[in-house]
């Protein structure tokens, strides 16, 4: 295993000439005249050329091996919007014992004036360092004399003690790049797992052996010398409804898997799931904390006193843990100390809370496992081999009569089986104390639905008075409960709501099941409002879409690059019955409509009718998937557009004499 494991397929022509670093200050007329239309007519600045090299070297004076990273870039700035490219911030890591160092910063601005290049060299005094926080130092500088059309160039060297993640390379940034090249030298004694993320493929790559690239204690060591090249890379632009940007940005990542010691030994870093399973289950702050049945022995009879079957036992334990330990707002897959301490303090991180849950479930002889996962903002985990640093969260899984439930006890207002949205991210890995681990889909677990039922009466004064009852479940209920809990009382919450609904007056309110989270949250509002109505010659016009109308199309882009991630499927129903002041027939009304998304992705159904003196209205809006592919975007857009179209039509009623 002397070679780097390349995890993507290499099928490139080897005819390309692999560049070395380019010369600083060698600005050409081609650079000056570079036409941004070749890459992106909207670009405010373009990276003309970018070259980086990383190698592992022995630092004799410090006596350690370290990573040397050298970076060099040339950027053309087109307009004032692009000036911020001349403000550079390089973050580096430090802690009590180790720190990354930036050195030999060189930076210049080149302006083409009167037929010649004028170089403004950045003064070293213009470089500032800032201790941003305990672990982060920022090196900052800005280039002098920036004008429209300036070309800036800078380079620096970074020395890092962190060999584990080598140095990732981001091909994609907020501006487009014409050419980006990364050259790495990896001594033969190190094995790295390499992964390319994002939507774009390498334009080229090549590897060769570099003989005797370093010496350790007099022993010459060979290196693998590998080039990664990407050309004409579009700028990365974030879109709505998308998870962590790191999932989509084109970049190359490294993780140390193995190191051969000079002594002949072999140190493994990333391993197989089999190794990981063994480590996690025997880990003091994970596996051991899943086995603390003893902590619950005394309290279990009291917890289970009303429970008969396994499911009700699990629910009782879930409720108990939610009350016993409050989440301290920290994520983690390991217990901070141990769950006994967390239980004593009534406070702990995510792992403390959910490891306690697992132990308690086990104490009631239920089949409980742990699931480690990565939250939505943390990106998706690598599936090809275990990357432990990808995982930042731990939940419980309990299996009852062939059904499994995913449980997270950190949200007191979440019902049994509803995972907080932050956990709903691709797949997690189930860790079992006795069996091998396996992947599982992270899904919400409970349905999200909202239903509005209105019974009302239209007066001759044009006002509608009535009662709206709303039932919410799943995320809709969780979000609302959290919102209500922000206020001192439901009254203050409703007052705020009343202020927000300018046209609707809330006369009376009642909110039920705020705390009994297993039930639907029920809000009952007595309301009064005047729908925008015109009455001409005994005809009555009004717009029936007054409950939660769709006024804006959330999908209004012409082109969508990334999948649309709504988090969870949802279902919204509106039913309205309004007693009319006398007998009417429908003159006109919005079209009854039934439209759907492809592959049963969702539907919208609308029906209105008048029978005798009652107007009734029913509407269903359903999304059956959490994630829609970019190809489905036009359908979503059209779907919403049709709904909005239809909502423009009024109901027109004619009085029957």
């Amino acid at each position, binding site marked *: 295993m002397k070679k780097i494991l390349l995890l993507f397929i290499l099928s490139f022509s080897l005819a390309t000439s692999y560049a070395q670093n380019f010369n600083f200050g060698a600005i050409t007329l081609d650079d000056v005249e570079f036409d941004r239309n070749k890459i992106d007519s*909207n670009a405010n600045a373009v990276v003309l050329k970018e070259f980086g090299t990383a190698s592992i070297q022995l630092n004799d004076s410090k006596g350690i091996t370290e990573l040397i990273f050298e970076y060099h870039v040339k950027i053309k700035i087109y307009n004032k*919007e692009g000036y*911020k490219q001349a403000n550079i911030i390089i973050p580096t890591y430090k802690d009590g014992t180790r720190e990354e160092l930036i050195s030999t910063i060189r930076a210049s601005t080149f302006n083409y004036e009167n037929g010649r290049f004028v170089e403004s060299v950045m003064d070293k005094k213009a470089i500032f360092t*800032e201790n941003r926080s305990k672990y982060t130092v920022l090196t900052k500088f800005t280039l002098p004399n920036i004008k429209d059309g300036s070309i800036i160039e800078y380079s620096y060297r970074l020395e890092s003690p962190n060999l584990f993640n080598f140095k990732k390379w981001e091909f994609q940034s907020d501006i487009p790049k014409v050419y980006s090249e990364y050259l790495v030298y990896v001594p033969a004694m190190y094995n790295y797992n390499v992964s390319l993320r994002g939507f774009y493929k390498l334009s080229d790559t090549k590897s060769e052996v570099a003989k005797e690239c370093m010496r350790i204690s007099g022993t010459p060591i060979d290196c693998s010398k590998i080039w990664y090249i990407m050309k004409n890379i579009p700028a990365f632009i974030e879109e709505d409804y998308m998870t962590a940007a790191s999932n989509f940005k084109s970049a190359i990542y490294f993780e140390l898997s193995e190191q051969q010691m000079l002594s002949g030994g072999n140190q493994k870093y990333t391993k197989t799931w089999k190794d990981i399973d063994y480590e996690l289950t025997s880990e003091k702050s994970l596996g051991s904390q899943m086995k603390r049945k003893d902590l619950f022995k005394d309290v279990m009879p009291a917890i289970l006193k009303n429970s008969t079957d396994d499911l009700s036992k699990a629910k009782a334990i879930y409720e108990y843990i939610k009350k016993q330990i409050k989440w301290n707002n920290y994520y983690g897959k390991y217990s901070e100390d141990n769950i006994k301490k967390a239980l004593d303090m009534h406070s702990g991180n995510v792992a403390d809370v959910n490891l306690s849950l697992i132990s308690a479930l086990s104490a009631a002889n239920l089949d409980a496992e742990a699931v480690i996962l990565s939250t939505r903002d943390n990106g998706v985990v690598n599936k090809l081999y275990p990357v432990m640093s990808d995982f930042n969260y731990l939940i419980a899984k309990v299996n009852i009569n062939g059904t499994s439930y995913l449980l997270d006890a950190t949200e007191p207002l979440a019902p049994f089986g509803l995972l907080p949205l932050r956990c709903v991210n691709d797949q997690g890995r189930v860790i079992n104390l006795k069996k091998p681990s396996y992947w599982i889909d992270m899904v919400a677990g409970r349905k999200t639905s909202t239903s509005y039922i209105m019974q009302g009466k239209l007066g001759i004064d044009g006002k509608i008075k009535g009662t709206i009852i709303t039932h919410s479940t799943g995320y809709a209920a969780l979000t609302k409960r959290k919102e209500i*809990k922000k206020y*001192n009382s439901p009254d*203050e919450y409703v007052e705020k709501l009343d202020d927000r609904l300018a046209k609707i007056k809330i006369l009376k309110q009642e909110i039920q099941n705020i705390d009994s989270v297993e039930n639907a949250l029920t809000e009952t509002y007595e309301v009064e409002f005047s729908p925008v109505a015109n009455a001409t010659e005994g005809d009555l016009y009004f717009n029936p879409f007054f409950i939660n109308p769709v006024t804006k199309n959330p999908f209004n882009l012409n082109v969508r690059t990334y999948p649309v991630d709504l988090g969870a499927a949802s279902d919204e129903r509106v039913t309205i019955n309004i007693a009319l002041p006398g007998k009417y027939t429908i003159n006109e009304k919005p079209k009854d409509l039934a439209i759907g998304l492809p592959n049963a992705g969702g539907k919208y159904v609308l029906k209105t009718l008048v029978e005798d003196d009652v107007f009734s209205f029913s509407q269903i809006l359903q999304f059956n998937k959490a994630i829609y592919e970019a190809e489905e975007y036009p359908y979503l857009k059209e779907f919403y557009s049709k709904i909005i179209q239809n909502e423009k039509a009024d109901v027109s009623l004619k009085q029957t004499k």
Partner: protein
Amino acid sequence: MKSTTIFFSLLFFAITAFSQDNYDADLIPSNLKNRANATIRNEETTVDMRAPDNVILNVKKAVTVLNKNGEEKARLVLFYDKSTLIKSIKGEVYNAAGILTKKFNQGNFSDESAADGFSLFVDDRVKHYLPSENVYPYTVVYNYEIRYKQNLIIPEWIPQPADDISVEKGSYTFICKPSDELRIKTQNFQGKPEETINDKQKVMVWKINNLFAVKPEPFSPDRATYQTAVKIAAKDFIYYDHKGRYKNWQELGKWNYEDLLKNRKTLPPTTIQTITGLVAAEKTDKDKARKIYEYMQKKTRYISVQVGIGGFQPASAAEVDMLGYGDCKALVNYTQSLLDVAGIESYYCVVEAGSKKVSFDPGFADMIQGNHVILCMPLKGDTTWLECTDQKIPFGFLSTFTDDRIVLACTKDGGKLLKTPKLTAADNFQIRSANLNILANGDVSGKMTTTFAGSQYDDNEEIIDKPLTEQKKLLSGIYDIDNIYFNTINYNQKKSLNPEVTENLSLDIPHYAGLNNNKLFLKVNAFNVQPNIPEVRNRTKPVYISRGSTDEDTIIYNLPETIQTNLLPDSDKSLKTIFGEYTCKTVLEGKKLTYHRKLVINDGTFPPESYSDFYNFINEVNTADNLKLIFSLKK
């Protein structure tokens, strides 16, 4: 120009104190819980001015967080820099029953640089801490001590820092030598401080109790103008090895000029030559100044660099000349130096910038006021103001960033308070005309031209230089209509003292007019619907409208041949109130439908009880703006 140019490096948190030990949340009287997200149980703030370079601030404070919305009120944020030492921080957390559950100290605090956005260098640092509690209520008790090695800026006291905080008890104690000369400004404080004097010390104590939380009300005046506050300024001061004395704006401005600004205006001979050449052909000082201003805009860009005497001193003109960048102080000083070359007098003016209008207090001079610098040219009565940190803004236009407020001009004759120009309702106009065709299938397309000026110029300037894709995105946000497409986008800018932007669009809105059962539904006001405002009952605060505006829309719709030309229902409206005027009118001539709408909003402060009139006015405008016409189609 939305670059926040905060240059004063010192922000103080003089929130204060206690001496009670029972933090049971049930002991809070219910009238203090009403509308409150947090209650300050007790606060004791003491400022001991032992010497000009040794001022000790000691704060003890107990805050009960009543619910999730009050969480941030428990956060302790302490800024510090080279002249500010945090000597100690101790704290405790109590649960709802008042039982101690946690202790913390300085080690638990995050320590970060106070820079926000891209700031090349900032001296300021910040320590902050928020207990991670999520069961309410709970109580946090802090006790911290800070030493200031200066007394130019003395921590002010604001016992009730927000509407949603109630205060059970609070006090502010100021200790100094009997001989120290002070100026004290109290705002909304009933009574007098308790005062004791002996040979060594003079002690003054201000006390308050039972300040209730209030419901936030929209269109309220700035809280800073009416909240209870005590501000103290010492006549003799020390600041970063600079000594000075002042008792009014005149003297403070003089110190600024003499100690911080003088002798920083030397320019290299080549630049002097360039400027001399540049203005040689110009006849008036104003034309010369315009040339110089445009030269400066082209040569420089704004970069925040907060160095030099605690962030108060500008970088030298020579440095800006060499680097081509600087912060607001440096760029104003540089522009002033260039104007000096042409013999044009100008004043370096400190201002509190932001869209909220905050004036310098004519009755109380201190160094806390202001966060930005602009330039004023008297030009023999034709006073002209320059914003120097924006490369795009027209000559002589300040925008809503610094309009209509009192600023401090630092001149060689000392400080002078000046007022920046106001943008009136007539200045802030938006005039639109559109000619749109409606097809039989409801599709709408046509051309639209809109001119923006005054504060509305500000809102639209930003979009001009954006790339086309970005403009399309922004416009579909501004014209919030489903399915709107912009085929051509074009902007003309009139960069004068009263600048204007004209936006020319050609657009398509498929299915804009709804078709249903042989009727065509048309919302005539497509682009400018006045949003509703919240209804507030029992209004307590005056109604404050900081800027007026005038909007005029004329839209011509060419209706399809398929419609039966009905009579229009009488939907014309005309309203007139102290808050403004509104008219809308629809006229149908053949197939040509003309919609005209004009809305004027007046700025000003109106009595609290008038809010319901304001609400009704806006509500009526909103209803009228949502007018939908229904046309029958030929069968």
